[in-house]
């Protein structure tokens, strides 16, 4: 069954939100132990961890894009922008993902 693009944007928004909610306590815990940061940063040099970092930043960007879309749909009067906003959200997420991939 072919799903609407808005369904996929919803799913990406939801799954990225769950991933961020799971990641945040770990993120805060590590930062709270700031003095032991170097041993942790050494651990993050592993390729799989780098991939995980990239994925969570992509999830954050995707959730931001999807959230901006929701706010625009709910608070702006026009509706024909749905597909354009979905595309813009995806483009923003990809742009941030690429930028981080280049920076890492």
């Amino acid at each position, binding site marked *: 069954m072919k799903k609407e693009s808005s369904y996929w944007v919803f799913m990406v928004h939801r799954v990225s939100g769950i991933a961020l*909610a799971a990641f945040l306590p770990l993120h*805060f815990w590590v930062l*709270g132990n*700031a003095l032991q940061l*170097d041993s942790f940063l050494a651990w993050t040099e592993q390729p799989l961890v780098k991939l995980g970092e990239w994925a969570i930043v992509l999830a954050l*960007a995707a959730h*931001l894009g999807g*959230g901006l879309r929701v706010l625009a749909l709910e608070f702006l009067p026009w509706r024909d922008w749905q597909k354009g906003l979905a595309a813009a959200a995806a483009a923003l997420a990809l742009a941030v993902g690429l930028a981080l991939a280049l920076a890492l």
Partner: protein
Amino acid sequence: MLWIAQRASAAVLALCVAVHLATVIYAVQGGLSAAEILARTRGNAAGFAFYSLFVLAVTVHAPIGLRSVLIEWLGWRGRSRDLFLLIFAAALAWMGMRAAVGVFA
């Protein structure tokens, strides 16, 4: 009430996340070291204020978002769910502020 809180916190987070993403992308260039990060952040009052607001907005936003997921995907209703979400919110607030203090204070 929850609907408004979720949208209001989303609006704050949109700004916070955009700034955070730009900071992350800028900061990771050339690798990271604890000393390098802390030298820039320690005693930075504006950074502390910004990330305190970020933590507050996340503390509101994440549990309300999870609430929808728990209801729609797990069918979890009632007081046990709300108690779980309250504990999650309290943990986020405490750990988030501990992190902000650890990095900026």
